[in-house]
């Protein structure tokens, strides 16, 4: 499964109300490390049916970025049962992201 692009319009439904844990990748198009992280997230999305992976463009969705106090990207926030459970900042190897889970 590909990484689903989420906006404030469907954030509630796709992230907060998800029955699976969600890895939400706050990114920007101008951010090189974010681009490097994307294939790693796609791999996780492809390999793990128990996890949902979404992405949020912080330039378009600045209110979401502010609400979750994102102040460095890439920032991958783990949501469980509608709340933040953990987060990882910066370009990290796959194992580090899976450790969040």
């Amino acid at each position, binding site marked *: 499964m590909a990484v689903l692009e989420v906006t404030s319009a469907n954030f509630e439904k796709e992230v907060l109300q998800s029955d699976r844990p969600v890895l939400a990748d706050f990114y920007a198009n101008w*951010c*090189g490390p974010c681009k490097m992280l994307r294939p790693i997230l796609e791999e996780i999305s492809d390999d793990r049916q128990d996890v949902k992976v979404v992405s949020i463009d912080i330039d378009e969705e600045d209110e979401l970025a502010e609400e979750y106090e*994102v102040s460095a990207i890439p920032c991958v926030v783990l949501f469980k049962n509608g709340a933040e459970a953990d987060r990882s900042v910066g370009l990290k190897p796959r194992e580090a992201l899976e450790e969040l889970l």
Partner: protein
Amino acid sequence: MYDIIVIGAGPAGMTAAIYARRAAKTVLVLEALSYGGQIINTPDIENYPAAAHVSGYDFATNVYNQAKNLGAEFRFEKALEIVDRGEDKLVRTKKNEYTARAVIIATGSANRKLGVENEDRLVGRGISYCATCDGAFYRKKTVAVVGGGNTALEDALYLSDVADKVYLIHRRDSFRGEEASAALLKERENVEFVLNSTVKELHFEKKLNAVTVVDKSGAERKIEVDGLFVAVGRTPENQSFSSVIELDGAGYALSGEDCRTKTEGVFVAGDNRKKEVRQLVTAAADGAVAATAAVNYINKK
């Protein structure tokens, strides 16, 4: 067995792979994280010949595709150790072992940390090592930059356009960085120099909200900031390989301009090598020199 194993897929390592492939050697590039190295953090490269404006990501992707199309093999595994077995070298990763006739170490460097308590837990919560990456989050806010080199000065200049107020904290009273940048900073009304001072403590609740600095006389000052940008230099990533290469006091690999090391068949290239100028173009140059030396070494055997 490969002819050459390159450790690190930054500009030095990938250029080495290109040169080695063009000399018809088999090449494995081992990379711990992603191709590109630290250049991917640069939004706009302006000083590379024939590429007046290119993003670090695009540059890295171009070099990666060039190396791949020439037949270099990439594996994303962290090299943990090199064993010199004379005729060949063994490179160990977490899961695998690879052998080659020659190894080029092009592991680059990592951000040096301040070494203040709670620094790690505040990364992404007020602490950053990259002003151009994270500066935009501090629009109209108060930030501090720590350091006195070019990166610190450039970071402070960049941030002074974005943030309301920028403190520049430096342990000496003069800067190592270019005078032109320091002069520009002095003209900025929203930049305050905090000299002869080091960061002693980080204050936070959920996020960083202040730092305590201490000056040479021992006097302390608490400064309220939303962000702290650490620009105190870089640390070469050579430690795992100290059995086959000689390191200087700062951890840089000693070699001549020919990129040879104390171990026959082991070469170093790029920012982890002791040298005067660490730039994209000198990293690429090292890659070419080290690969050529490795190819000659193999051919003479």
